[in-house]
């Protein structure tokens, strides 16, 4: 059984003061196996963030269902949804979403504190992760005192510290320069190699080339996927680029 399974997901936004409707997702079907590293690619406005938000339980689907370990997410009670999010999912956002009033250490510990984890347990988990991510020198600083790349690594640490079933990352390299992006993707790849499942949304072919599988999304549905197989990152990146070129020229009429 797949760790994550998305079936016939549909999302229609209705504007608050008018009857105008936007169909962000029409029918999305795919699944993610445990230990996978999947990228979702698509142009801006293609529904990537919407998809991720529904998987994150931050937003509700219009129809269709998301299953985690075979359990439908829509059946989670309102009261338990936050706890579920805290303990099962890890998030990495494009704009970091770190809190300026917390030190780096406290930012990373935040989900554990919210879960009322004993302090000894928190500290025991913290050190290996920050060392692994190369930010142990900065844990007493504040977010505004470190670089963008470091911030994103802090966000990754915050996602990892709850030992989530899956990490959901929305354009994690979107606000980073190429060097920091490279560094972050290597980190994510390393984490994945240790067994962590990752689902990432991106429009960067370079970033996507670090994953094992790439899904292409357009006009609200998945229309293509490619596996890396035994290819190197560079080879895979070429294939991703090719796919994108072919697919976008095929879809030109829609633009």
């Amino acid at each position: 059984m797949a760790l994550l399974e998305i079936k016939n997901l549909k999302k229609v936004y209705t504007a608050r003061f008018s009857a105008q409707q936007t169909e962000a997702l029409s029918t999305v079907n795919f699944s993610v196996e445990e230990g996978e590293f999947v990228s979702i690619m698509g142009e801006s406005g293609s529904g990537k963030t919407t998809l991720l938000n529904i998987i994150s339980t931050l937003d509700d689907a219009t129809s269709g269902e998301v299953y985690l370990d075979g359990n439908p997410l829509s059946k989670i009670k309102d009261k338990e949804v936050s706890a579920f999010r805290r303990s099962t999912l890890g998030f990495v956002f494009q704009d970091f979403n770190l809190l300026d009033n917390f030190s780096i250490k406290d930012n990373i510990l935040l989900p554990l504190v919210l879960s009322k984890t004993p302090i000894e347990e928190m500290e025991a988990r913290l050190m290996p992760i920050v060392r692994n991510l190369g930010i142990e020198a900065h844990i007493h600083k504040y977010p505004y005192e470190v670089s963008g790349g470091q911030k994103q690594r802090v966000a990754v640490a915050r996602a990892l510290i709850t030992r989530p079933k899956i990490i959901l990352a929305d354009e994690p390299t979107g606000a980073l320069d190429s060097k920091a992006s490279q560094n972050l993707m290597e980190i994510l790849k390393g984490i994945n190699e240790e067994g962590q499942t990752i689902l990432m949304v991106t429009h960067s072919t370079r970033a996507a080339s670090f994953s094992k599988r790439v899904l292409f999304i357009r006009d609200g549905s998945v229309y293509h996927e490619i596996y890396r197989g035994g290819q190197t990152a560079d080879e895979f990146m070429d294939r991703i680029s090719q796919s994108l070129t072919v697919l976008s020229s095929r879809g030109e009429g829609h633009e």
Partner: protein
Amino acid sequence: MKGMNNRFFSALALRNIKSNKTLYIPYLLSSIAIIMMFYLMASLMANQFVQERSSALPTLFSLGVIVIAIFSVIFILYTNSFVIKKRKKEIGLYGILGLEKRHVAKILLFETMFTSVASILTGLVAGLVFGRLFFMLLNYLLKLPTDIDYVVAIDPILWTVLLFLAIFAITYIYNVSQFTFANPIKLLKGKTEGEKEPKGSIILFILSLVFLGWGYGISLTIPDPISAISKFFLAVFLVIIGTYLLFISGSIFILKALKKNKRIYYRPGAFISISGMLYRMKQNAVGLANICILASMVIIALSTTLTIYVGSEETLENRYPFENNMSLFGDPEQPELIEQQFADLQAHYEQETEKLGLEVTEMEALRFQSIYGSLDNNRFNFTEAFDGLELNVFGQVIPLEDYNGMTGKNIELAEDEALFYHSNGKYTKEELIIGDRLYQLTPIENDFSAETGLTETIVLVVPDMSHIESMMASYKEQFPDGPIVGLSADIGWNTTGTDEEKKAYADRIRMQSYSVESARYESRDLQREDWYSTNGGFLFLGIFLGLLFTIGTVLITYFKQVSEGFDDREKFQIMQKVGLDKEMIHDSTKSQIIWMFLLPIVVATIHVIFAYPIVSKLLTLFGITNEKTWLLSFIGVVIAFAAIYWVIYRITSKVYYSIVK
């Protein structure tokens, strides 16, 4: 950049204010409230009651005006610094976009002009309307025999305009300096950085204790009511400054200690609220200090005036120890006249009472000579009468005969002996030279004369009238051209009879008294209504001020919660994304209770407890000597205000919650 005219800048300024609605609406509202508060306080200076009731009132009210002025300065600077900090990014952008600093200064100038004119005008109008309405309401509710009018005078309006123009000018200078000396890149990042801990917070903490201790010390050691008036302002000022410093340094100290304790800090509610408060520690502390100071003002204003009102009967009895009181003022040229009057009148009143079928139940008659001077070593040195009340010791010299008659004692005195009472008990020598005589003193309690309590007073009971005569002869020798106060006499008596009979009796005696020379007759019953209406006037002012400061408290609490709500909103959204649930938001707002609710109330209560001695002294100016009344209304007001503030706190924290959730 040619063609950039004032119109362009003013349009830009207006647009800026509009687009920063969430910042400017609370800012304008609280500025308007404080302007209204100042204006109303200042306008009370022109109030007839304040001007005429007691010579202490105008002084106390002008102190009040100064206190509110200082408070206004601190308050507006604080809210302004908060608003401008939030706008650093936006204004930094102007620099990046190529606007010159003088252009930015011009935009800020227009913004300041618009906001200050708008808030001063609205504040004045609100003050005029509120003052009138509220006086109407209070007149209706209290039903005093005579209404208290709300007077609109031009001076208070002028003061208000000038003061607040000056304050807003300072904010403008501050804001411009913020941008002139900063580089745009820093500004762009400005908002996200936490407040830096003020340097030397230990020194600030010690300073705060020094200021508070000094202020409290003045109150604890105040010797008499006259110095209470003059020192009250200094004490208030010291305590206000001390409060700000205490909250700033103390709250950082406590928060940091809490943060260091991992078992306390790493729990959801504390984690969120402690880090949030540390992040804006100064802002937080100043807000709390504001609430604390206003709370103290409410408590003092209400509890004192309530005491005066509740204590009316007591003060009436202090002022008029008997139902009937006759005072005679002797002519120094004809000393024998008053002696004659004194004897005749006592007999006359006995007769009058009998005529009406009533009986005299109690009568006291006392002749006394007033003297003024100073106690130096073992000598009482005369000064010219009325030569400045503050420096002088006021003395009453009483013949033994009258003292014995009054107290029912049977004391005998040798020619060089006297009974002696000293109001502050500091004169402990066993002898006193006065005029050309030396007396051996026997101390007595003051159980006879209505003590004013205002100045240092001595009472000397001498063997007979001849001692008073020779004493005055010495005074005349020393000050041949000085004013001379003749012998005075008080006759006080109670009678039997119903209230009506007593009233008719008092009316009759009063009519007769008009024909007695240099005399004043006062009936307690006839004075009662008058007395209650003046003391009701105090209560009126007290409730008015209490309400005014409560409104101030409401607005500041509201401002604090709303501004912090908008500040925290983004944070809570991020935390919700990583798994913060609504209940925990509730928890974290709950754990603020100790800070937001308890801290200001507790510190305010400590302030007023320390203010107790100085306020007691001030109350004696209004005839209140019974500590119990004062203590009870004090406790009552503290509890009542805590309850009101609790409601305010609950409502505003709901507002906060609805913003962040």
